[in-house]
């Protein structure tokens, strides 16, 4: 049994906006073990990114309010940490890779400066040792001629190359937990595949836990050990990838999988999920997916279903499970 790195319990983050209070993250619970990759899947607006930001407590103030729950990293509750302590944790014990490589690196500073900055503060290195460590990290993410590359500026690099640099920064500590927020969405296919392999390799080498946020089920299948499907700020189903892909229990998960073309599948017509994604500001009491759910029952509209186990390590939040 590998040790649990991250244990999130009833995490809530609400946002005060002009349209009322939005429960972007509404009571999330999940764990990620050492060396394990948890996929976070869901449509846009399901709260995937907000979850990541809430874990590293960078949800945009003054709108965001931490409305409860606990985030245990190796037993340490991050929500209880002071700003100073959090700042020490970010980058060292929890690292993050953002979505758009084109704008993740600071355009006016050299790659070297942006690499040396975290390495110097994590490892206290100076001068030549610092330079070598930075070059070594670039080599670790398979960037050719790392020494010269340190002198280059972001705009002199391709998207894929930049995302590798961000990856190198992420593993600088190396961290206990790496959060990748749709890191390959804006890369084209071939580069995407290489990057995913690289992440896998780095994970095996450093044994960090990883949360991989995406709305691409293909990537989930390839990268993740377990997957959590999010809808309107809640996890509607969580379990091993194999089980969810072969025997999804929650109607939303089933609909998601049905709308994905399969190699060799006979269907001509892909089924789309009708209706609109929920307006987070005006969520009713019941299950958020009720208006679009094929198996909707009276109860679904009135009462929000609790999380119930439907198999080993396989939970779901739907009244169908009770039947």
């Amino acid at each position: 049994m590998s040790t649990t790195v991250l244990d999130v319990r009833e995490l809530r983050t609400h946002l005060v906006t002009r349209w009322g209070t939005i429960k972007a993250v509404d009571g999330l619970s999940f764990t990620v073990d050492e060396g394990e990759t948890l996929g976070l899947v869901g449509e846009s607006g399901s709260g995937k990114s907000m979850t990541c930001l809430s874990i590293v407590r960078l949800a945009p103030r003054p709108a965001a309010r931490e409305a409860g729950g606990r985030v245990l990293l190796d037993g340490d509750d991050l929500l209880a940490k002071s700003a100073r302590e959090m700042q020490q944790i970010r980058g060292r014990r929890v690292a993050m890779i953002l979505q758009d490589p084109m704008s993740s690196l600071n355009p006016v500073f050299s790659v070297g400066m942006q690499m040396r900055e975290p390495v110097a503060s994590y490892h206290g290195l100076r001068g030549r040792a610092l330079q070598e460590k930075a070059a070594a990290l670039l080599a670790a993410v398979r960037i050719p001629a790392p020494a010269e590359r340190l002198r280059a500026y972001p705009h002199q690099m391709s998207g894929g190359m930049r995302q590798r640099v961000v990856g190198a920064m992420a593993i600088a500590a190396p961290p206990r937990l790496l959060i990748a927020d749709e890191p390959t969405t804006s890369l084209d296919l071939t580069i995407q595949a290489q990057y995913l392999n690289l992440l896998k390799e780095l994970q095996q080498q450093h044994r960090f836990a990883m949360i991989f946020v995406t709305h691409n089920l293909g990537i989930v299948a390839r990268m993740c050990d377990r997957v959590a499907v999010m809808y309107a700020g809640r996890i509607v189903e969580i379990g091993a990838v194999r089980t969810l892909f072969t025997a999804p229990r929650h109607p939303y998960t089933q609909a998601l999988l049905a709308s994905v073309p399969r190699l060799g599948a006979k269907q001509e017509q892909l089924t789309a999920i009708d209706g609109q994604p929920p307006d987070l500001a005006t969520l009713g009491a019941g299950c958020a997916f009720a208006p679009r759910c094929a198996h909707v029952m009276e109860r679904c509209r009135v009462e929000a279903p609790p999380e119930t186990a439907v198999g080993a390590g396989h939970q779901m939040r739907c009244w169908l499970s009770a039947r």
Partner: protein
Amino acid sequence: MLRFVVVRLSQSLVALAILSVVVFILARATGDPLSMVLPMSATEEDYANARAYLGLDRSYLEQYVSFVGRAAIGDFGTSIRARRPVSELIRERLPNSFKLAAFAMGVSVAMAFPLGILAAVKKGTAIDRGAQIVSILGQSLPTFWLAIVLVEFVAGRLQWLPAVGDGTLASYVLPGFTLGWFVVAGMMRLLRSSMLEVLDSEYVKLARVKGVIEPRVVWLHALKNALIPVVTFAGIYFSILVTTAIVVETVFAWPGLGRLAYEGITGRDFPVIQAVVLVTAAIVAVVNLGVDCLYAVIDPRIRVAR
């Protein structure tokens, strides 16, 4: 980089050439300078002598050619009013103008930067509202009114600071502040909005995620990017400083180029008018060039493109 400087300089020369024609015509349109200098009793013969002595009897084209020809080598002719070589007058007054403009630029940067940045970082708080007020006041107080109020109260009654330039650093404060104040508003608003833009960016989010301490994120990562639009406007700000200096020089008795231009115009002193306008234009062009180089220092993307 060098090619860029050469192209810019040649373009500035073209602009100066256009300007020299415009100012040559405008100066002469102000009227007959001699009536200001010669006494009431001057006879027609006196006028003829003076016109010959000052070379005003030659055709306009001849006068223009000799003006531009000599201006190229720094000789702007003799002032009709002060009967002294104009270049000498300018050499006496230019340092004062330059020091005042530099000090004013320093003042506006010293005020605009902290205010602009803090207003962006602490958006919506008291500082932000304060910056808003400074910005509105900056754009709605006529420079001369502020100058006179400062002279009357701060220098005259409270006697904290000297009212007139006497060489000490303290004497720069009031005129520098008055001149700089006009530019503070514009620069601060621009810095605040560009900081807001940058603080929203992905690389700032990544810096925070990397565990960079907040002050370093704001004052290094964010500021260097936010500077870009401010620097592009710095050229315009400097030309505003140089052009509104006349008013400050009048109130604070500061012997600068602005005052020289004012006397030149009221005295219909062609050589002085032409010289001052060209010298100011040249300074503004050089400063703009300097600003663009500064721009390249800040933003590497520009360096490669040029």
